[in-house]
């Protein structure tokens, strides 16, 4: 018995010593991927890497999108951040500003730089040109519609799926159905505040809400085109009555159920939701997609995701090797396809699977040139948006404040917020 225990102890010591002497590095890779197909694909890529590179092993750490920032901030504060981080690109930039993300310039070769559009690099770079992340996934914000309901309302969408603001409102009005008591049984449109259709409208109208001055300071300066765009959005609820107040607080599953049961004839969401609609309706619902055509230019939210390296990592060079492997043409394409999104590298984007008619990839592909990150690249943007700006818009939607008063308050409170953030 005693001999058996000794053998086990010695074996364990041998394994530990071998691992220590082999010089193998283990990297922690934090990722919020959650859809089954994407989780499998990421795991497969990591497994392939681990098999090929016994000297650099990668360990996946999963975290939910909802609390990834909390997780990271507490980890950074404790000096224990994961080596590699998959996050929104705007957060890669923010972590860079806070010195939590490592500048990657020295790891990026000319071919990699050239294969990703400059606008995407700008989203993860500071004014000094430090690049804090590698953008690798993007999407398009679209309007999903129920084809049967549109046909019943006598609506024939244009061939390219691009509708003007007036057409969108007209569709929503014709699709909204009320019963004899005046209760709405079908809402023409649901565009949750969180999905930022209103930001796209502001950009489409060449409007400005947040302005960066030449001295680098940020200011809330809401101009008339922005005001008109926001008014168009809030009027859908308060004047046209074609969109419910549910835009303030929605539940993803209930939204999809509502689309399936005809409670909502159209709704805005990222293009990855195609898979969910198909699964939920077991491919029984005939649906299509629309994009909003801007009065000044065409813009849709791309919500890009990127990957960065923790500045406190003891293995930055090894992390960079994995990062470049994970975001190469082949892998970007694999992850994007599995996540029902688009890759950012042009070489990956050119692959035929992103232009096929199956699951309407081709429809989305034609709108990709309009996809850009509509979130201004300002440190603390999310905080400003949800703590300062959105509460004012919510008051307009609830009918408890006029748009002009709300925007006045958004300007004064917003600038106070920016001063407190050290942005003015």
């Amino acid at each position, binding site marked *: 018995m005693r001999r058996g225990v000794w053998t086990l102890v010695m074996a364990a010591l041998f394994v530990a010593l071998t691992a220590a002497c082999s010089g193998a590095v283990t990297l922690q890779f934090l990722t919020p991927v959650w859809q089954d197909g994407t989780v499998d694909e990421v795991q497969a890529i990591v497994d392939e890497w681990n098999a090929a590179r016994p000297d650099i092993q990668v360990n996946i750490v999963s975290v939910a999108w909802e609390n990834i920032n909390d997780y990271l901030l507490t980890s950074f504060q404790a000096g224990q951040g994961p080596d590699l981080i998959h996050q929104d690109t705007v957060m890669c930039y923010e972590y860079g*500003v806070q010195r939590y993300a490592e500048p990657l310039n020295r790891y990026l070769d000319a071919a990699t730089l050239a294969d990703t559009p400059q606008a995407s690099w700008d989203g993860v770079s500071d004014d000094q040109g430090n690049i804090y992340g590698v953008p690798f996934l993007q999407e398009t914000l679209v309007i999903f519609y129920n084809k049967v309901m549109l046909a019943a309302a006598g609506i024939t969408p244009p061939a390219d799926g691009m509708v003007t603001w007036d057409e969108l409102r007209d569709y929503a009005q014709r699709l909204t159905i009320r019963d004899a008591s005046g209760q709405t049984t079908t809402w023409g449109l649901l565009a949750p505040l969180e999905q930022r259709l209103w930001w796209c409208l502001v950009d489409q109208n060449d409007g400005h809400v947040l302005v960066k001055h030449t001295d680098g300071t940020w200011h809330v300066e809401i101009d008339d085109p922005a005001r008109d765009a926001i008014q168009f959005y809030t009027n859908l609820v308060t004047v046209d009555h074609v969109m*419910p107040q549910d835009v*303030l607080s929605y539940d993803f599953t209930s939204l999809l159920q509502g689309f399936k049961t005809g409670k909502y004839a159209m709704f805005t969401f990222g293009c990855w939701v195609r898979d969910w609609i198909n699964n939920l309706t077991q491919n029984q619902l005939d649906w299509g997609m629309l994009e909003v055509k801007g009065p000044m230019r065409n813009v849709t939210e791309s919500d890009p995701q990127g990957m960065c390296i923790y500045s406190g990592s003891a293995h930055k060079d090894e992390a960079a090797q994995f990062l470049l492997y994970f975001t190469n043409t082949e892998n970007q394409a694999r992850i994007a396809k599995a996540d029902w999104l688009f890759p950012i590298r042009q070489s990956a984007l050119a692959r035929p699977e992103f232009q096929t008619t199956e699951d309407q990839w081709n429809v989305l592909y034609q709108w990709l040139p309009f996809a850009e990150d509509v979130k201004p690249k300002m440190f*603390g943007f999310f*905080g400003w948006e949800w703590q300062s700006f959105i509460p004012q818009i*919510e008051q307009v939607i*609830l009918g*408890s404040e006029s748009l002009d008063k709300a925007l006045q308050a958004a300007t004064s409170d917003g600038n106070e917020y920016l001063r407190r*953030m*050290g942005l003015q």
Partner: protein
Amino acid sequence: MEEKRALPFVAPALVILCFVSLYPLVQGISRVLYSFHALTGKSAYSGLDNFVLLFRDPVFVRALVNSLVWTVTSVGAMFFISYVLATMLNSRHLRFRRMFRTVTLIPWALPGVVVSLIWRYIFLSGGPLNTALSGLGVTHPPAWLIDPHVALWTCIIANIWMGIPFVTIMILAGLQSLEGDILEAAAIDGASYLQTQLKIVIPSIKKVVLIVLTLESIWTFNSFDIVYILTKGGPANASMTLPLYAYTWAYGSQQAGYGAAIGIIILLILLSVVVLYIREVLQ
């Protein structure tokens, strides 16, 4: 003399306590003195600016008022409902008493996040509650999570449901420790049911009641999950509470100093509750 001899035995626990309680407290207090400046990307000493800003911040004032309403209403309702429940569960005339006691504990066995998600589903505009209300002929059921006049009360309802088991079990334990003779004597003296409860039962279980009210007040005031999941403090900050507000600044805006300042205000408020409790117990 005995205290001196006990000191070496208590010392390890004291050291651990210092590490897990005092160190974070000191850290938190020290953070209040710093603010993060996004343009420079660095934290800088800002003295007591965070406290000055706090009292000029209308959302902070709103969150403070909401927190007081949330705590007083929740704890008050929890106590009242739990007292009635505990009295029923203590009654010898109740059949299946054990089963009911077990059922009462169920909400306590569920994690707060799960409870909050269940209530969120129930309260959705097209959720089961409004579907039931519509079925009963209510033409305009409340927008539980969206109406600014209702949102905080929606959170309070969920919180009461979650807090009832603990309070009920504690009061039940207190009631079971009561001597039957006292109640019989009160009945012989002609005391009404209400008089018996107010003048005999509650004073007899005063210590249990005090500890329950103190603990529930602290837990409820500090509660985060329900409001976060149900309304995120909205709409338009209508259901914002202090812990959630501290979180939004510390994590949403990465101003740990301002979040810590709110945390210290919370600490001071809760300390006053504890002081009140100690005074009552010492009396």
